């Protein structure tokens, strides 16, 4: 494309000049947008390390100089969030594994094996991705609080377990909720991958007389390892970052079982306003798990997003 040889009729010199100017403009715009996307994160990060006085007096973009620098906010935020980190991971990791496994199974059943009315089933899964969760919130609250109070049922068991406390039982309904509502997106992500696999693999297995379970375990699972990576990264980020279900099912930001996202909007707030040093420190701490995953697996994350939209 860009290396295309100049046409004979063109004046080469003017072409090069034009080309360079355009290139320059392109890079200036790119740098502008890098600034646009990073500025809120940069000001937040700098503010996290500033004393209250520096927060009020200095330019948000500027790094802390000399006595403006402090780690107190970060320490305070870490102390406030340490229990919440455990809660978030304790809830998000099993929930991710659950929805990813179910998603893979469903996608296999929907793509590798042909049967009638698959399309209807597929549409039901697809709609499940887009349903606004507000449409199930009242039933969810009623179900887990009144109809099937699973949390209070498993609490006695949790008390006897090491590491866990009784209040962690309140995260179990949240975990199951995340698994159930995560299935549709995981299914569609896996489906797009399975569709790209050559049909001959499954056909060969069938001719050899392998059962459907055997084909899944011996053929499909081993070759879908990279896709498991993509879906796991995508889904973990979604569940860890999620707020609305946690907000509905965990009673408040001041409870011991609250995950990170639930505590964050309340941290460092007082009657005199918001302490932005603390708030920004807490925000960065809360974002660290997803930031690490994103920086390490940016390509997989982008792939998950791309596949989500058709």
């Amino acid at each position, binding site marked *: 494309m860009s290396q295309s040889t100049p046409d004979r009729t063109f004046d080469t010199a003017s072409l090069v000049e034009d080309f360079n100017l355009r290139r320059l403009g392109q890079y200036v715009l*790119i740098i502008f947008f890098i600034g646009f996307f990073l500025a809120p994160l940069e000001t937040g990060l700098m503010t996290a390390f500033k004393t209250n006085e520096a927060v009020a007096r200095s330019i948000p973009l500027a790094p802390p100089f000399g006595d403006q620098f402090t780690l107190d906010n970060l320490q305070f935020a870490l102390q406030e969030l340490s229990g919440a980190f455990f809660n978030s991971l304790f809830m998000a990791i099993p929930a991710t594994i659950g929805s990813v496994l179910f998603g893979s199974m469903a996608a296999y059943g929907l793509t590798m094996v042909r049967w009638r009315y698959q399309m209807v089933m597929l549409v039901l899964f697809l709609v499940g991705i887009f349903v606004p969760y507000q449409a199930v919130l009242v039933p969810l609250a009623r179900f887990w609080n009144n109809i099937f109070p699973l949390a209070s049922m498993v609490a006695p068991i949790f008390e006897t377990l090491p590491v866990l406390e009784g209040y962690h039982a309140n995260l179990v309904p949240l975990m199951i909720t995340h698994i159930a509502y995560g299935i549709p997106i995981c299914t569609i992500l896996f489906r797009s991958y399975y569709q790209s696999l050559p049909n001959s693999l499954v056909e060969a297995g069938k001719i050899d007389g392998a059962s459907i379970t055997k084909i899944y375990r011996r053929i499909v699972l081993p070759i879908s390892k990279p896709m498991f990576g993509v879906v796991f990264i995508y889904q973990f980020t979604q569940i860890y970052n999620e707020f609305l279900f946690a907000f509905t099912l965990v009673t408040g930001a001041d409870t011991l079982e609250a995950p990170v996202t639930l505590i964050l909007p309340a941290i460092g707030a007082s009657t005199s306003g918001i302490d932005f040093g603390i708030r920004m420190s807490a925000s960065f701490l809360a974002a660290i798990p997803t930031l690490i995953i994103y920086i390490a697996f940016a390509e997989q994350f982008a792939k998950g997003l791309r596949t989500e939209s058709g």
Partner: protein
Amino acid sequence: MAAHDTAETTQGSTESDVGMGTKLRYLLNSDFVRSSPYWGIPFVIMGAAVYGGIGFNVAISLTDASGLNPPDYSDLDLEMYTQVLGNDAFIQAAQNNLALLVSFTVICLLLGLFLAVLLDHGIRYKDKIQTIFLLPMALSFVVTAQMWLWMFNQQNGLLNIIVTTFGFEPVNWIGDPSIALGAIVFALIWQFSGYTMVVYLAGLQSLPDDQFEAAHVDGASVFRTYLKIIIPQLKEASVSAAVVLMVFALKAFTFLYSLTGRYRPPTGTDILATLMVRQAFKFGKWAYSAAIASYLLLMALGVIAPYLYYQYRQGSL
């Protein structure tokens, strides 16, 4: 798992006495039945949660449940739906929601397309730049809301420092009801335009390269080539990205809640999602909020259904 050995399946016997047993055995060995544990178990879990939940929500919305009164299913009517429609707060929230949906979707698509075209041609470190543009999407709305709360801060926020260096008065971005919604749309565009860029980049990369060469030979400028030849081919990417953005705009709750940490978002930015959650969990008006949720669901379906039909017609489901 219902995986029997296939070796002894019936071979469709030519004899006249094809009994019920044979038929049953044939049915049990069909792919439908044998693959059923795979799609069936996830479907039952998901179906109970999504469709069971929706049904339950509709049932609650037909009762008068509120506060500590459990829903009474013996007396069902549509009263809540008419009550919701007659409420000014609902109309206001619906208007805000529509404004948010349209401006957010359109600007996100345009900016995403612009960024994709910007990165499409022989840019160095393209992958790294793409990673930076997409970074906000990896963060929770709770986190980005805190960052923007600081950006919008009236005394020391970065935006007001920029505004005042140009000689203008500091703006109360979040506190002024007439611009609060615009400020929030701006922040959401910051978070989502990387996503539309990625969708468009995938679309651009799937196009054959020679179109550019052909247009170049014909003497068409790069701008005209994009406008007349390339962009019309990105229709599918635009449609699917637009659906994701519109559905998001309908259910956006977390960002707005996290700005204030209260049920009531900044004045002038109340949308259906925040109104519904507030009515349910602050005031305990279960049936009333369930009715709002039903309207919200209908609007979302109004976006999704044509999209799925379009996809089905295209054969790309």
